[in-house]
């Protein structure tokens, strides 16, 4: 195939990637409120127009066909974004936060979207990762990359405490177990002084092989990049790994088992699928990812307190998974970006953030319960759709 022939199917994808990246760069760069509002309106308009003219469907197919290449494009886009805003602390902080939230929501998605295990304590497991990082950086000399993994492991371990009640219950009862745990976690942290109590804990910044993450990157006299670049890079690496992991699982026989468990437990167990085992796998793995994200977040922020991990924050994580389309990792990324960046940029709606989220989710549940980018049917050949 000639070069042009190979490139042609990728063209829509590349165009979209470039367009979206430019849009996001402009959105992040503009300061004035009216400018941002106008941009958002234009963006929404463009998306609606695309849906109307069937462009969206074509792009979806293009994405489906050339998964890996387009994933690469997205990574490239984030790199371009980082380079463009290299000295703007705030924008990079937002980008890093979005990346971390996407990792956490991927974990939640594994539990919720793939195997149907309700987890309303997402923020609590995130908090476990954060506190692990805080305690380990302060009291031990464990290398910080290992601390990230330790955060994930701690979250998985704490989650296993909940395994028995979560597995034995279904539906509403299962929900109440995780809600109770989420509340218990926050109250326990507030009441107990050993982990800092309501005053919270300070967390040292990451330090990998002597490279201190909390210092601005200075190359020569004139070049000073924001120290958040470090965190964006690490976050990106973790995101790629987590995303790859989740996609692989989804595509594999493990994903098939998880889907079966979610869709119909009774039928699945009739077929000999061990429900317990798959639910446990999903729950533990999901919590691991959430804890991992938490550990990185703590080190980036430098300070954590119990009020970071309230029930409302768990609900935000669940809203993201729901809005994006349950089970679709891409939808997650889009939803996270919207839910984190828009309130930050539109100062006027900052206060009304929670209210708007709640109303948005209610509307989505009433009118489009599948979410923004519903999970497409499993396709044997990537990108193949039945006519």
């Amino acid at each position, binding site marked *: 195939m000639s070069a042009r022939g190979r490139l042609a199917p990728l063209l829509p994808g590349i165009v979209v990637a470039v367009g979206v990246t*430019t849009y996001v760069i*402009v959105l992040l760069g503009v300061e004035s409120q009216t400018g941002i509002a106008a941009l958002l309106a*234009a963006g929404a308009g463009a998306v609606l127009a*695309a849906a109307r*003219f069937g462009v969206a469907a074509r792009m979806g197919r293009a994405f489906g066909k050339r998964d890996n290449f387009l994933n690469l494009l997205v990574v490239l886009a984030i790199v371009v974004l980082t380079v463009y805003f290299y000295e703007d602390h705030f924008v990079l902080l937002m980008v890093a936060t979005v990346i971390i939230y996407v990792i956490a929501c991927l974990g939640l998605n594994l539990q919720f979207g793939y195997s149907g295990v309700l987890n309303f304590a997402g923020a609590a497991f995130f908090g476990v990762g954060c506190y692990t990082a805080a305690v380990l950086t302060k009291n031990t000399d464990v290398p910080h990359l290992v601390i990230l993994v330790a955060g994930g492991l701690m979250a998985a371990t704490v989650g296993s405490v909940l395994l028995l009640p979560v597995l034995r219950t279904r539906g509403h009862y299962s929900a109440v177990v995780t809600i109770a745990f989420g509340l218990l976690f926050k109250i326990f942290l507030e009441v107990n002084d050993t982990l800092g109590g309501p005053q919270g804990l300070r967390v040292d910044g990451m330090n990998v092989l002597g490279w201190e993450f909390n210092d601005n990157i200075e190359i020569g006299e004139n070049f000073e990049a924001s120290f958040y670049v470090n965190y964006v890079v690490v976050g990106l690496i973790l995101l790629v790994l987590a995303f790859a992991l989740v996609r692989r699982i989804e595509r594999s026989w493990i994903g098939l088992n998880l889907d079966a468990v979610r869709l119909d437990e009774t039928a699945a167990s009739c077929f000999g699928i061990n429900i317990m085992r798959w639910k446990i796998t999903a729950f533990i793995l999901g919590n691991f990812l959430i804890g991992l994200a938490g550990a990185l977040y703590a080190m980036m*922020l430098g300070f954590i307190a119990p009020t970071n991990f309230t029930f409302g924050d768990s609900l935000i994580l669940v809203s993201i998974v729901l809005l994006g389309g349950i089970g679709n990792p891409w939808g997650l990324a889009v939803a996270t970006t919207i839910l984190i960046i828009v309130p930050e940029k539109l100062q006027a709606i900052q206060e009304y953030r929670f209210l708007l989220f709640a109303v948005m989710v209610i509307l989505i549940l009433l009118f489009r319960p599948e979410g923004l980018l519903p999970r497409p049917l499993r396709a044997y050949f990537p990108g193949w759709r039945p006519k």
Partner: protein
Amino acid sequence: MPKFRFTHFAAVAAAAMVTGLALGMSPAGAKEKVTVGFIGPLSGGTSSNGIGGRNSADLAVRLRNADPNAKYEYELLVQDDECKPNIGVQAATKFGANKDMIAAATHYCSAVAISTVDVYHKFGLPIIVWGAVLPDITYGNNYKEVHRVNGTMINQNETAAKFMTGLGYQTWAIIHDTTDYGKGHNKYFSENLVKNGGKILGTFGVTSDQQDFFAELTKIKSLNPDVLYFGGLTPIGVRIRAQMERLGLKAQFQGTSGIVSDTFIEGAGPLAEGVLAFREGAPTEMLPGGKLFLEQYREQGYSDPPEAYGAFAFTAMNLILDTIEAVGPDRKKVRNALNNVTGSNAADSITGKVDFDDHGQNTIAVITKYVSQDGKWTVWENSEYASGMRKLKGM
């Protein structure tokens, strides 16, 4: 289905971006714009103090912008820290990360202020605390960026202990919140009380959003203390006062600067009568520039009063503005200049002389004793309780 036309897409995208950029550009102005900041609790139970502080800082900026001799045009960015440490850290990070922000007046809640000092140091943003009283904020670190114009809780509690034991009270029960603010008050008051011969029958730590205090209060009732000392902020102060009444606990209620607010009196209603509290700094009317400040505040027409610490917020913001006028809008220069406000370089302000010691702490000599009388916080010496016409509990 119409064919996907690249040109359509490009047109829409270009239009969007051009509009955005056009609207984003600000019109050219005469004076250079300088951004300063204010952080305080604008929502939640302590919001009256935060809003009062914000209005006062805003007043300072407005007066300065109305001054034709000012070199720059100032813009005040305001953030709400909700009196929660993590929200405060977020707000501080936003300000620190904002390359246009030169300096800020920050925080009423001590629990938040102690958590954010690291952030300000990380970003090199000079700040002046206007309302938080925990000593550690300035004395617990060596950060050059951190300053404070109001006093600390040490003197407050010294005076309180001496005064209360002087009145004849002998036994205390202490309730304090578990943030560093409450713990700090507990520590300093207990120390001073024991020195002055008072006896502490029990100490109870409560969370800052606790609803039900019947458990602690039932226990305290059985201990039968003369005074119930409360080290914490208005929201739970109100609850404790109301629940004391329900249990028939007849001890005298003594609070700290945390409850000297109109919200406490509104919240406790008639139960606020006869409550004692202590605060560093003279009441606003009696400050050197107090009357002028109140006049100008009234003229601007803010719908909320400046509350107890408004004057300090005004002082902090004014000092920041003066410094920027003197050395220009540069964080490092402003920081160094602020550290120079000491000794012979002490600045004048409506709250008196501002003289930072080597930790950036201003000294406030006066401690005011308040008693709540007829729905207002009245200075003790002027009250009917001091003159004997009304009696405190247990007298």
